[in-house]
């Protein structure tokens, strides 16, 4: 297998304003080309699009609108995890030698059809994601004594981090008090525990080791990948205080990269709801089981940006198909030392965690300088 690196990324401000999915996609391609002066359209072998939008033939449409005639063009959809799944597909094309370069573009609109998985009969009348998140929260509270205040620290930290992310949907800080007093959607999920659907777009360029040297003097390497799909239906995840697909993905990614949780300097985690960050910290081995809540408190109180430095999904907004790509761009910038006010000093190894539909599937990427 050939080495695969990240050569550049482009991202646009996450908003609620109305814009077509095609324009959203091209708007993120532009900053990729702007940031890599030696890149021309003729260099792109594969264009992959990541979205839950129902539009057809988007990879070809966006290629044409960007003046690219790639060998490979298609879309990847797997709900919230689409972006990271798309990156893994591109990785496979490059490492196998089918492509030297791949441009991955993820975009979503706020009214995405990917927000609720209507197919899942096991959810009964409780199809909306707040209900599965409430079940995870109940289970973690019961087993480990996690509190509503612990959950509030996730939102307070991520909203504060998002203040230094120029592309974030949210531009205000929220105190622990604000979050504790925000509207209860269920007894243990409040409005400010939730990520918000929005319009957003992010694009990233991957290339083979030989090719990347021609266009980028500071590439970041993808050295570990783990993916697992347990099911589509929510209730297959037996232990509700844990995410089985995340545990398996993390083990595979650490093994492939020959790294452990101790090597991770900075991480992007899929905090669709605040309970998710707490469980994922534990399941990725970044803290001990049951200690996710106190770990987040310590991060917030010491202004430590290690986890979700761009503000996570809660602070940045969650345009499904763009999320995994935006997460990966953040770690790319962190490892290049170019994350500005969000920079975690001396970050050499980073982790991206993304998942879909109540963690029925997960992806973990390890990135290195």
């Amino acid at each position, binding site marked *: 297998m050939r080495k695969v690196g990240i050569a550049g990324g482009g991202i646009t401000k996450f908003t609620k304003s109305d814009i077509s999915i095609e324009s959203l996609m091209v708007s993120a391609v532009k900053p990729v080309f702007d940031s890599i002066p030696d890149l021309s359209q003729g260099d792109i072998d594969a264009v992959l699009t990541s979205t839950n939008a129902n539009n057809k033939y988007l990879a070809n449409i966006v290629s044409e609108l960007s003046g690219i005639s790639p060998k490979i063009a298609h879309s990847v959809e797997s709900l919230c995890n689409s972006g990271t799944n798309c990156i893994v597909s591109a990785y496979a094309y490059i490492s196998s030698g089918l492509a030297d370069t791949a441009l991955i573009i993820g975009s979503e609109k706020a009214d995405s059809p990917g927000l609720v998985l209507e197919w899942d*009969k096991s959810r009964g009348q409780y199809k909306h994601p707040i209900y599965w998140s409430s*079940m995870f929260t109940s289970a973690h509270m019961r087993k480990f004594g996690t509190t509503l205040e612990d959950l509030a620290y996730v939102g307070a930290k991520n909203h504060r981090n998002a203040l230094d992310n120029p592309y974030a949907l949210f531009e205000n800080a929220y105190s622990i008090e604000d979050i504790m007093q925000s509207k209860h959607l269920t007894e243990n999920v409040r409005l400010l525990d939730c990520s918000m659907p929005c319009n957003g777009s992010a694009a990233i360029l991957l290339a083979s080791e030989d090719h990347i040297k021609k266009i980028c003097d500071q590439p970041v390497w993808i050295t570990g990948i783990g993916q697992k799909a347990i099911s589509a239906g929510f209730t297959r995840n037996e232990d509700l205080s844990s995410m089985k697909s995340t545990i398996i993905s993390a083990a595979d990614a650490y093994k492939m990269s020959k790294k452990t949780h101790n090597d991770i300097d900075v991480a992007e985690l899929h905090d669709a709801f605040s309970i998710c960050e707490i469980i994922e910290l534990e399941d990725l081995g970044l803290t001990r089981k049951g200690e996710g809540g106190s770990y987040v408190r310590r991060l917030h109180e010491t202004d430590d940006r290690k986890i979700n430095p761009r503000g996570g999904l809660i602070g940045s907004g969650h345009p499904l198909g763009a999320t995994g790509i935006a997460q990966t761009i953040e770690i790319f910038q962190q490892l290049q030392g170019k994350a500005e006010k969000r920079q975690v000093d001396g970050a050499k190894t980073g982790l991206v965690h993304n998942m879909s539909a109540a963690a029925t599937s997960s992806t973990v990427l390890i990135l290195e300088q």
Partner: protein
Amino acid sequence: MNKFEQELKNNNFTCSECKKCDKLVWPPSDFCNKCFGDVMWRPLSRTAKLVEFSRKNGEYFCIAEFEDQIRIMGTIENVENLQVGQTLNLIKCDYDGKEKFIFRSIR
């Protein structure tokens, strides 16, 4: 409506079961997810185990487990002293575009 939804609307909670290997196939499907054999439909037990629950305003919702394997989300009508692991009775199921399951707690 498919067979599963039609039966649910008649207050029958049925599931597909493989004619070849006897496996209960959930979610309902026309093929066995172990051997791809043909399935038939059979009623499930009306008692379930309470796996987890929470509340939205006054309404309690839960995950309940049938026959030690099939987990679905539904509503609990009487809610005093609910305990994870306790038995629930499925008192009504329905289908109106979404599957509906209503339980009562048995103590």
